[in-house]
């Protein structure tokens, strides 16, 4: 439980990192930074092991893989250096909802979470449905000190009303990564077909939030045993399966006319829908998908007051255990931090999300970071806004899966780096967006990396979160993998302010 000073000193990353505290401030170029003897993970090379990195004047000057006696005592349980993370799905609420989050607060949260690039969803006010809004977002990003790369998806439909296409061409020229009406599905199959074809001209994906709005109408929680007992209106599995089926059928149809049509399904949450994606991929359809940390690690039983990880709630036979039978209801039920769309599913669905990540059905982990104000969350469960503030806890949640032996560290890192980049890079024929760059530990490139300590645990508290959104169901919980340093494009994005000595 307690942090191990040895781990800090093991790589002297802490020490070396800390020296920079007197040097650059957030946003300034990192003049000199060294990590001696840490565990390096490079998902582009597919390599991990003991090594050292040196950053000089913002450039990743050297990456040395250590062997033999030099590598002695370095393992993957301590300080880890990885490429900076890329979140395919976040809400920074600006413009329009700056009381919930801003580009500045969201960027600080992202950097604290180890992220150096973030793709924002267009459900702002006004919606990002024309390039002027993109310019507002860019200028807000420039005005802040943070070097975290702010990217965005444009809306599929004007005003996200599901009626007519947004200014897709102009948005593509303005550099959006693709198109989504996230927060809601692309309203009709007809509009989706048009969007896939039109976006395909630019080689950009349509990102769908797969939800059958009729089946989910009025829903408060995943339809199942927990919702039955708690008297919550159910969001059935069929609501996601139906939507994913529709999307895949429309994609197949669109491909006949537009071979560059491509679909990305975000926050897929059910075993059945992931099976559909798996089969579609096997059939060669240009579809990708992501899963969220909360759908991987939490389950609907948390709403009843359980607080065990999803894999701890799986029976030996692979079915969900019963939290009432197990006597594990320890927290106040109906915590609105757990209200999210799609809802937390069963432990079996969570296990399916993990299996999808392991077999490549899921290309990436995306946070769906959805900060909300206290006013929107300190209300009755069924009236609370949907969403979890998750960009700062994603790494810790994935490391809990690594610690439990469920997920290899390298796969976790890949799902946060090369995986999301690959979603944008997968289809050739159009100049790839710079966001699709490989995201490895590349010598000679601007340093874009995160240093975290798996042996150093931190407690999730409202004060510890840089996001304005304190709506995390993990408040009060300890996570491993404290982020010590995040460097984005050669500039300091985040540095852990706590001296190592107070941790012993």
């Amino acid at each position, binding site marked *: 439980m307690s942090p191990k000073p040895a781990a800090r000193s093991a790589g002297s990353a802490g020490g070396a990192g800390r020296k920079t505290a007197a040097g650059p401030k957030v946003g300034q170029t990192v003049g000199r930074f060294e990590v001696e003897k840490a565990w390096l993970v490079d998902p582009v090379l597919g390599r991990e092991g003991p090594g050292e990195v040196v950053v000089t004047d913002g450039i990743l000057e050297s990456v040395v893989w250590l062997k033999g006696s030099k590598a002695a005592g370095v393992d993957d349980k301590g300080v880890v250096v990885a490429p900076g993370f890329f979140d395919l799905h976040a809400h920074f609420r600006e413009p329009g909802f700056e009381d919930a989050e801003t580009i500045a607060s969201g960027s600080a949260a992202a950097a604290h979470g180890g992220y150096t690039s973030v793709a924002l969803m267009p459900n702002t006010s006004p919606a990002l449905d024309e390039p002027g809004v993109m310019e507002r977002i860019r200028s807000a990003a420039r005005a802040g000190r943070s070097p975290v790369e702010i990217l965005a998806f444009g809306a599929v439909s004007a005003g996200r009303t599901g009626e007519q296409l947004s200014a897709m061409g102009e948005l593509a020229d303005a550099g959006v990564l693709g198109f989504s009406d996230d927060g809601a599905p692309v309203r009709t199959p007809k509009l989706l077909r048009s969007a896939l074809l039109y976006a395909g001209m630019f080689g950009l994906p349509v990102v769908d939030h797969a939800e059958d709005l009729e089946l989910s109408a009025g829903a*408060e929680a995943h*339809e*199942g*045993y927990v*919702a*039955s*007992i*708690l*008297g*919550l*209106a*159910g969001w059935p599995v069929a609501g996601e399966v139906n939507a994913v089926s529709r999307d895949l059928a429309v994609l197949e149809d669109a491909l006949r006319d537009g071979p560059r049509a491509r679909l990305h399904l975000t926050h897929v949450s059910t075993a059945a829908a992931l099976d559909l994606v798996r089969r579609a991929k096997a059939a060669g359809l240009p579809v990708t998908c992501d899963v969220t940390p909360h759908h991987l690690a939490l389950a609907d039983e948390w709403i009843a*007051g359980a607080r065990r990880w999803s894999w701890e709630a799986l029976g030996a036979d692979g079915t969900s255990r*019963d939290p*009432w*039978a197990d*006597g594990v*209801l*320890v*927290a*106040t*039920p*109906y915590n609105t931090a757990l209200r999210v769309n799609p809802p937390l599913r069963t432990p079996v669905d969570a296990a399916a999300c993990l299996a999808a990540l392991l077999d490549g059905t899921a290309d990436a982990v995306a946070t769906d970071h959805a900060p909300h104000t206290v*006013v929107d969350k*300190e*209300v*009755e*469960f*069924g*009236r609370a806004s949907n969403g979890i503030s998750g960009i700062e806890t994603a790494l810790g949640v994935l490391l809990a899966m690594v610690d439990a032996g469920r997920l290899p560290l390298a796969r976790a890192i890949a799902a946060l780096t090369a995986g999301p980049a690959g979603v944008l890079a997968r289809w050739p024929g159009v100049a790839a967006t710079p966001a699709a760059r490989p995201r490895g530990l590349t010598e000679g490139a601007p340093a874009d990396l995160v240093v975290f300590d798996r042996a150093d645990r931190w407690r999730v508290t409202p004060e510890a979160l840089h996001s304005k959104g304190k709506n995390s169901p993990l408040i*009060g919980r300890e996570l491993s993998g404290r982020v010590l340093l995040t460097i984005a494009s050669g500039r300091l994005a985040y540095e852990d302010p706590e001296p190592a000595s107070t941790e012993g």
Partner: protein
Amino acid sequence: MSGEGSAAVAWNHRHLIDVDVLTWPEIELILRTTDEMKGVLARPIRKVPALNGRRVTTLFYEASTRTRVSFETAARNLSADVVSVAPATSSVTKGESLVDTIRTLEALGAEILVMRHSVSGAPYLAAEIFGGHVLNGGDGWHAHPTQALLDLYTMREHLPGGDLRGRKVAIVGDILHSRVARSNIWSLTAAGADLWLCGPATLLRGFDRWAAAWSGGAIPGHGRFTVTSDVDAALRNADVVMALRIQRERMQGGLLPSLREYAARFGLSAERVALAKPEAIVMHPGPMNEGVEIAPDVAVSGRAVITEQVANGVAVRMALLYLLAGSHEAAHAGEAIR
């Protein structure tokens, strides 16, 4: 399960939001206290000074005559000062949040808050904010603990030896949307009753899986129950038959073809009730749609104990107000509310 002696049990619940947290000895304590309160109600002057000077506030976000008046009568019988907040005439219509309303009521001196709310789980939010005691008068589809306890009390009065073990209780109606059914599942499976839940498949969704999960005696202190759409099977040889209200909205939601069809297939007619034991009692939590879920002649027959339920409701609520007021469980910040 029931009947394991009646050693002294201390009451240590600060709130009562559902019966799910109660052990059987705690339920028996409530029922014994209810006996005493019925004794009070039998006196010429139905008033005792037990809660003299204590302040009970009722906050009902959903229309209710019966339950609110029952709570307020119970509180006055115990000499409590009663404040009744009707959100329709309060700041709530100006958009005040539940949390702000509760903070205001506490500042105005509320000690025991009796609340009813249309959203499941709302009383847990109230309990996290409120420094006093929260007594749930019904939340969404989730729970209605005083109804379940008065039902249990009324059943025990009519069953030989006051014992529900092995007694068949059939609840027929809109189970899916019923907080009464949910709370009764907890209390009746704790009492050892042979509980049957019956209704059209559209109004039973999810309950099969729930029943299956509990079938192996999985939940400590609770027995199994049966779910069926076969109303004859549910009623046959029943000791207790309970009808639940069918709301007209269910037809707009596409869950029922018509109230007429419901009445024909699931309504408690005299012929159907005849399937139950001759001495079986007929219950209804009210308000009734006579001619829909229950035939008028059944509702007024000698088997019906519906007005007894109402009378017992006052006694049960007196018992709970008395027990909660005497509970000295301190409020600890950040502690889980169960």
